């Protein structure tokens, strides 16, 4: 197990290096000159050249890349070109905001998806199963931005239960309860797709195990149903659910952008979108690396959990 874990951890380094190189090169393909963008339509050619030199954009590509990488390894993510502030001061707080949103959405997805998935399988074709199927189809088919507008309409404008936007009320005291109050609707909108995926996968995975010989044998021995399900069936049904949850968590970090825009949630998705438009390479690089790092780490954790539950995987 330890060797398996170590190998998986070491594999992260080339993955991240590859991501950073590919990103850097792809960003060069985005049309537009950042210096010209910065200066606006009144800029003259010599002023643009002056700014390009100031930003180091007149250097060869490889030199730009390695000077960025050198800084990054020493904890200096550079300065944002468009915002003129250290990248860390933009990317880190925004990333944490998205982590909060994605974490809450994932918790909601698991809290609803797992029990409904299990019940759907155990009581196949019952009303719970039908409800689960409906939720799963609705959740995966409803575009998150549409769902977000619908939630705002009902819960904020009609019922007045939740705020429409932001992380805090600009007139409030800014406490944790206020944050939770603001978090609920965006988290719910974000959770729709992972909730649907987790519900469907849990259902099919549990169904498959429930029909297997050893479960029939356990039942034949007279074990109580809840023990058969919770102790034996779940342990065998969970690995694919854990893997997919890891993947979903990764997607959530980059995939919350629509919900962030509609709820004015100051997250990394929105920031990344703006940085790409402004060709603000240091911000895009740092934000993408953060997302990639978390994606890889979450999937590593999921794989380790699966390996723990399924000893056959550790041998390799």
């Amino acid at each position, binding site marked *: 197990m330890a060797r398996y874990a170590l190998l998986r951890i070491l594999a992260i380094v080339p993955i991240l290096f590859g991501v950073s190189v590919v990103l850097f090169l792809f960003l060069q393909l*985005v*049309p*537009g*000159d950042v210096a*010209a*963008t*910065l*200066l*606006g*339509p*009144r*800029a*003259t*050619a010599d*002023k*643009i050249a*002056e*700014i390009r030199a100031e930003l180091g954009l007149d250097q060869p590509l490889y030199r730009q890349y390695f000077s960025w990488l050198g800084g990054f390894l020493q904890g200096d993510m550079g*300065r944002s070109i*468009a*915002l*003129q*502030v250290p990248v860390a*001061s*933009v990317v880190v*707080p*925004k990333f944490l*905001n998205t982590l909060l949103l994605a974490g809450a959405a994932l918790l909601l997805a698991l809290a609803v998806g797992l029990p409904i998935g299990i019940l759907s399988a155990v009581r196949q074709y019952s009303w719970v199963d039908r409800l689960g199927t409906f939720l799963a189809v609705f959740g995966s088919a409803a575009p998150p931005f549409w769902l977000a*507008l*619908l939630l*705002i*309409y*009902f819960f*904020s*404008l*009609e*019922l*007045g239960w939740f*705020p*429409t*936007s*932001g*992380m*805090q*009320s*600009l*007139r*409030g005291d800014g406490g944790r309860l*206020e944050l939770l*109050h603001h978090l609920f609707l965006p988290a719910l909108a974000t959770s729709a797709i992972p909730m649907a995926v987790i519900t469907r996968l849990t259902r099919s995975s549990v169904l498959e195990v429930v029909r297997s010989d050893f479960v029939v044998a356990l039942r034949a021995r007279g074990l109580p149903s809840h023990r058969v399900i919770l102790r034996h069936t779940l342990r065998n049904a969970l690995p694919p659910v854990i893997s997919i949850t890891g993947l979903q968590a990764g997607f959530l970090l980059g995939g919350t952008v629509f919900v962030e*825009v*509609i709820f*004015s949630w*100051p*997250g990394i998705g*929105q*920031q990344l979108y*703006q940085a790409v*438009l402004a*060709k603000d390479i240091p911000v895009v690089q740092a934000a993408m690396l953060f997302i990639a790092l978390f994606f890889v780490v979450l999937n590593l954790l999921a794989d380790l959990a699966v390996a723990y539950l399924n000893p056959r995987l550790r041998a390799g």
Partner: protein
Amino acid sequence: MSKNPNHPRTRSPLAAAVALFLFAGVGATPALAAEENGGTLIVAMDAEADFLDNQAAGGWITWKVNRNMFDTLVMEDLTAEGVDQPPIIPGLAESWEISDDGLTYTFHLREGVKFHDGTELDAEAVRWNIERMWNPEAEQYSAKAAACTAFSWQALESLEVVDESTIRFHLNRPFGEFIGKMVDGGCGNTSLMSPANWEKWGNEEIGEHPVGTGPFRFVERVRGEKIVLERFDDYWGDQLDDPRYTGPRIERLIFRPMTDPAARVAALQAGEVDLIWSPPPDWLDAMERRGFQVEQAASPHVIYFALNLREPCLDDPKYRQAISHAIDRQGIAENLLKGAAVPAYGMIVPGSPSFDADFRKNAYDPIRAQELLAASSCPDGGPTMTWLIPTGGSGNMAPIAISEWIQRNLNEVGFNVELEAYEWQTYLSFWWKGLQQGQSASWMSWGMTTPLWVEVVGHSKWHPPEGTNVGWYQSEEVDALLDGALVEIDDAERESLYAEANRVMMEDAALLPIVHGKTPVLLGPNVEGYVAAPQNWRDYRTIELR
């Protein structure tokens, strides 16, 4: 969290869902948040400001925030109601003289003006600020500030500090719009910052720590969430017994970036914000019926197309005039934009001293368009034209819908137009290289109160890459008129020269003005005293909260 005490409850879920699609949430009545306000006005912006360096920040969005914290030597009075153009009034300079030859401007500074950090404004501070934007040798020089304000200092030769409260600008040639350009905002502005504060932060950090002399001072900024300003108690305007200079009635002014228009409207309805920028034109009527206030005024702004005069057919004035006659500007302003714009027939914008609201040239007349086309060098309508447009972006009102309307107009008359849409930053990246072979026309949304604007888009010396005459228009007559206007120091004479240059350009139909935007905003019912000035930005000092 502010709640809406006056909500009608949903009649049925189906009705609510239908309403959502039809009106996207315009169903609730306004919030009555009076007692919760405590003198704080919350403004929902349509994009995030970049950085709060008043002399170097990029674009109108940031200037709309910065202008509350910074003052210029001479200012535009945006508190005046019912005026066609913002009066130019003394700012940090209480008076100024221009020498007879137009080469020397002497500014007399007000006494007792304090920056937000407590330091005093004097002539030395003014010199320090101008050098930051103009003198590459100065320690505080910012290349970006210089690029943004280059038009203002184009004739500046030297600066002379006469005494503590007098500074003199020596020009190397007369520059009639020197004052007019000084009050202009946008990418960079000539307003003054505290040199002592700059010493603390330098060019790199100054954009996070703005300190000016304006009516509001900076409190804090959380990127993506808010920029908080509060009333500056030592504001110089409060010392004067003149309503044009009175400091803010509100205590706090908070800007919240909210990029999604539906989210801005929802937040206004829920009482979370008091004022929203760029409301979707479709919703103005419905929101007004619900008790919200719509405020707008024709602004120094024009949506226009530049035609590529190097292309076949487009090099023929008759062909271009036919295009202009085919465009139903009134329909675009009234039906498509629901009155949030007025038709534009010239490049000179509302709010400019040379603007003439009655000026008409090549207005909508499809029959005349067909006649002109038949008489042109391409009577069959010519080859398919490619018109370049952005999909959206700062200050662009519905570019795709407007362009499709124009495309339909043109195709009806016999032209063949194809639209090519690009994301805004990508669009800008090739727009300022000028129209290339195979590109027939390009969209832009821009404008300035100074009539110098006509030169920016129409003088042949500003062909790319030197400038933004992107359609390669070249007219000796126009160039001569503009050169004359540039050095003319008599205001009336200069304004008429610019108006004449505009008339010739419009006769040539080199540029196609479409509409002037009205910079609409939506206000909660609790907001009073908002003045919709003929400018792309507004003054918040007059606002009171009920």
